[in-house]
């Protein structure tokens, strides 16, 4: 079995590596220092099991597990936490496995023995708990069994195209299945709706310009593209730029 250990603290990773090595030396062990690195590691190594810490910088364990759950064949995830009342409550509600740090050898043995792929629905539901409903730090795309993550603060805009939403960063375009409305709601502090089919990152707005035809367009950072502002949203966008 391939096991991925995810924790921002080296001592914690060392201990788990030690424990797993003592229990079952035949397992191959990989390490990652946060939720985002964990996704890259999953892409590269395809582990069967991920031992995921909750509290980590860049991307926490809950969000990482949620992204993983969108894979066709996600690894099993067991969370580890020193003490987190909210997380533990959520886990118990959703029957998701968790281990409390410092992890006991016998508890780890039991968990390893009964590793089964955790229902993807359970993992998705854990992230949607009301207490943890903060906006994601990354959006993820699944391509040929690989997860790609895009940091939300690199996104210039989300634009609806046919049944998908285009995610535009400085260098890339990706397509995700989320609806524009749900993205607008989730990222309402960072993004501004400018059109029926587009919502723009506030940090990437450089200014507004009027075309000859009298329509307003947004000038953006990191791209030459200009986004059209619909008549309905013009007043709101102008107010926002002034204020």
């Amino acid at each position, binding site marked *: 079995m391939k096991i991925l250990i995810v924790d*921002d*603290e*080296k*001592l*914690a990773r*060392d*201990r788990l590596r*030690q424990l797993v090595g003592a229990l079952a030396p035949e397992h191959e062990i990989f390490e990652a*220092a*946060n939720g985002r690195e964990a996704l890259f590691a999953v892409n590269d190594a395809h582990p069967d099991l991920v031992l995921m810490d909750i*509290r980590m*910088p*860049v991307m926490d364990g809950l969000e990482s597990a949620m992204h993983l759950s969108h894979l066709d064949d996600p690894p099993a995830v067991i969370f580890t936490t*020193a*003490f*987190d009342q909210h997380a533990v409550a959520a886990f118990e509600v959703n029957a998701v496995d968790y281990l*409390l*740090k*410092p*992890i006991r050898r016998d508890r780890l043995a039991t968990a390893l023995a009964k590793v089964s792929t955790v229902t993807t629905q359970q993992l998705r539901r854990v992230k949607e708990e009301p207490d943890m409903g*903060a*906006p994601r*730090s990354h959006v993820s795309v699944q391509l040929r069994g690989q997860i790609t993550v895009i940091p*939300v*603060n690199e996104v210039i805009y989300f634009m609806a195209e046919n049944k998908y939403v285009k995610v535009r960063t400085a260098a890339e375009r990706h397509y995700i299945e989320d609806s524009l409305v749900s993205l607008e709601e989730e990222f309402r*502090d960072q993004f501004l709706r400018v059109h029926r089919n587009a919502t723009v990152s506030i940090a990437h707005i450089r200014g507004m310009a009027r075309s000859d035809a009298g329509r307003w367009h947004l000038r953006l950072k990191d791209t030459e593209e200009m986004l059209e502002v619909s008549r309905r949203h013009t007043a709101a966008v102008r107010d926002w730029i002034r204020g």
Partner: protein
Amino acid sequence: MIAVLRKRQLLRFKGAAIVTHVVAVSVTFAIASALVANRLLDGNLARTTAIFVLAALALAAVTYLPLRAMYRLLQRQPLLVAAPAALLVAGTAAYLAAWLTIALRPSLAVAVGKSLSPGPHGPALEVAAITVLAYAVVIQIAVSTRRERMARQMNLGNRLKALQARIRPHFFFNTLNSVASLIRSDPEAAEKAVEDLADLFRVVIRADRRLVTLAEELEIARQYISIEKLRLGDRLRVAWHASADALSARVPSLTLQPLLENAVYHGIEPSMTGGTITVDCSCEDGRLQVLVTNPVPRLRRAPNSGNQVALKNIRERLIRQFGGDVRINIRDTRERFNISIDAPLIEARASK
């Protein structure tokens, strides 16, 4: 007689109802019989006593039944409404019962005593008045005992919560995890960590009104930081500055360490690269100035609600500890988060 009634207290009839009634009615008749001690019916003590007892039971029943019927209604009202309502009901019932009795048996009127007006009204009113008085006494006793009990429970609850907050589970369990890891790879570091942790907890567990020197506080803070460095490594850096006169100033125990803990939790942990926390202690114009700052990592979320709660607790704790003459200033810029304490300078007593 009825002390200031707090707004949201409820009057409960459950269980105490019967006792209340028996006591109220007994008191009523004790008073009444004291008044009529020299007015035996037909000069016969036994007969008078018998009639009094029967009347007492009858009055108890008469006042109990309507109150019981109104129990659900009264139970939900605040005390300020329920108590007068109960007194009114009991008084009215007693009046009606007494009025009826005396109207039917006028000879009983003399047992209640002389009254200003002829007929049943006067004596009935007296009976009602005594009943209301007796009930008022009982309600007062019930309310004050209940208030005492609630205060004791709340006090216990608060103390438990305070103790739990002092243990700081996040730090505690993470440290134990680090120590468990170090036992094999670096046993000496593990041993030192356990000793530092014990020292820190010795301070945490004690009652917190003790005054210690700032130098001692800084030592505890340094031990705390060296424990946290085990798991955070180079991500955690601290710059310490303390003037010589500040070192001898006296502050309540555990002033500094919780500020550092907050700085680590919100300023260092959420960042992969970490940063530097600064601690500055100085004296100015006879006041002690303590300033703790930490970096503000680029948070992707809105202001952390957990931090607001932690800051509120820190502020309240410091105000409680310093006893009022302290100014706490929290300044949150985009680059750094600053907490400053401005407190009276209490010098250490003459050294030995």
